[in-house]
């Protein structure tokens, strides 16, 4: 099968989705990110790997956190970064995506970080760029958000290194969540034995069981004895019609409170990809509580994005050193 993410020799060329990434590459990204965490702890938080390269953040859909962390990541690799909020410029004048991309390539861009409301946008761009250009998917529609999935895996591995022994619960709006899809693929690839999804029927994709997850509609039952609780954001902006009675009602049934968290293992960690709806899917006391690793997720997100860019931009023959 043709996997546009990989070169003929199996190394990473684009990062488009976690689905289809071999375990070896996944682990290589996580291990490389480990080294970049150290870089961020120094006085000089910069390495010269991408010196002279130009990274374009192409955001057809807004996202402050993702764009900022990609920008910081590229800058810490010494790249030059341009962040384009495309929704607000060319697109409104009728320029096509490919025209925008080709213009930036004419300006010697080397790498594109693409966020788009349409599923498959990053794949589309990756298919049309010349061989020396690399594309990273920073979220496309409901499809995929691979760097979020990767940083979540990195965070889990940091706190719970024994992945083959974990019980992980993903809670909330799985239907609209590209993050959930990326997480499920990554957890499965890395050999996490038990993945649960907890959500009302209306917020679950049909046949979600086929992804190899256990489905719970009752949150208390689903949280019992889990090691990791991954909350999802209730995506109001993606909802059409009345999938939910009200956000208050949702919080009562699926909001993560201290009392509910107590059902998980005592040392369970709580994650959230942000931005949080406090009081809707998560209670403030949990979000700011001892078990929360939500801010470390943001920090590790930079290291993961540095690792991905570093692996894409260099020659990729696996590197004998002399």
């Amino acid at each position, binding site marked *: 099968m043709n996997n546009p993410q990989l070169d003929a020799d199996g*190394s990473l060329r684009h990062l488009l989705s976690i689905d289809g990434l071999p375990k070896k590459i996944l682990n*290589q990204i996580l*291990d*490389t990110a*480990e*080294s970049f*965490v*150290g*870089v961020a702890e*120094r*006085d*000089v938080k*910069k*390495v*010269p*790997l991408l010196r002279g390269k130009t990274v374009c953040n192409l955001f057809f859909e807004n996202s402050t956190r993702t764009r900022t962390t990609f920008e910081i990541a590229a800058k810490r690799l010494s790249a030059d970064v341009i962040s384009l909020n495309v929704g607000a410029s060319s697109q409104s004048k009728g320029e096509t995506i490919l025209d925008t991309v080709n213009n930036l390539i004419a300006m010697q861009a080397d790498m594109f970080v693409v966020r788009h409301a349409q599923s498959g946008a990053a794949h589309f761009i990756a298919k049309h760029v010349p061989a020396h250009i690399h594309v990273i998917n920073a979220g496309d529609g409901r499809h995929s958000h691979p760097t979020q999935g990767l940083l979540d895996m990195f965070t889990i591995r940091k706190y719970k290194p024994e992945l083959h022994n974990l019980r992980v619960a993903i809670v909330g709006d799985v239907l609209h969540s590209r993050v959930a899809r990326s997480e499920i693929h990554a957890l499965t690839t890395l050999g996490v034995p038990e993945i649960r999804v907890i959500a009302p029927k209306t917020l679950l994709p049909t046949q979600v069981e086929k992804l190899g997850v256990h489905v719970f509609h009752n949150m208390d039952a689903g949280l019992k004895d889990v090691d990791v609780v991954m909350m999802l954001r209730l995506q109001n902006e993606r909802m059409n019609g009345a999938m939910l009675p009200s956000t208050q009602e949702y919080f009562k049934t699926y909001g993560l409170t201290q009392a509910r968290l107590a059902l998980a293992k005592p040392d369970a960690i709580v994650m959230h990809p942000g931005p949080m709806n406090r009081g809707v899917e998560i209670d403030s006391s949990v979000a700011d509580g001892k078990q929360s690793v939500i801010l470390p997720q943001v920090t590790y997100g930079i290291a993961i994005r540095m690792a991905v860019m*570093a*692996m894409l931009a*260099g*020659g*990729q*023959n*696996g*590197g*004998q*050193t*002399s």
Partner: protein
Amino acid sequence: MTSKNNPLPNAEDLLKSIASQLAPSLKANTALVGIESGGVWLMQRLLNLLAKPIAQYGVEHGTLDVSFYRDDYAKRGLKSENRPSQIGFDVEGKHIILIDDVFYTGRTTRAAMNELFDYGRPASISLVALINRGGRELPITPQISGASISLDANQHLQLVQNPDNTLSLMLNVSET
């Protein structure tokens, strides 16, 4: 073939030699920094062999993986395995002794120096290599080395760590 005509020195003997050459350089405000991976194995052994002066002068130690600073990244990319550099002490004003296994072009040393300077401004940097195989391409040379030999470009000299933690040198010849 070459190794028969010109047998490789014994790595354990070279280690003892660099340990005795290094001993007088150990003083206050000094730190040993091993370069991954062979240099780190050597450093671990040196920490043992020189435990007394190291404790006496409070010599610190750390490790560098220079992958992010190599000048051949654009060509070769990242190697599939890299380890976080660990410099747990303040580099500012320290006398740094870099430790590497095989000294060849000097490019690894350059990368290591560039990385060190991102931690701070050392008082001095010197280089210890187990063996100098000749062929330097930069104005860099080890201040202390166990032996100097001369190898051709298609000969690859490598330090290996045996299961019992002893070290040996291995020579591979690639087709040209």
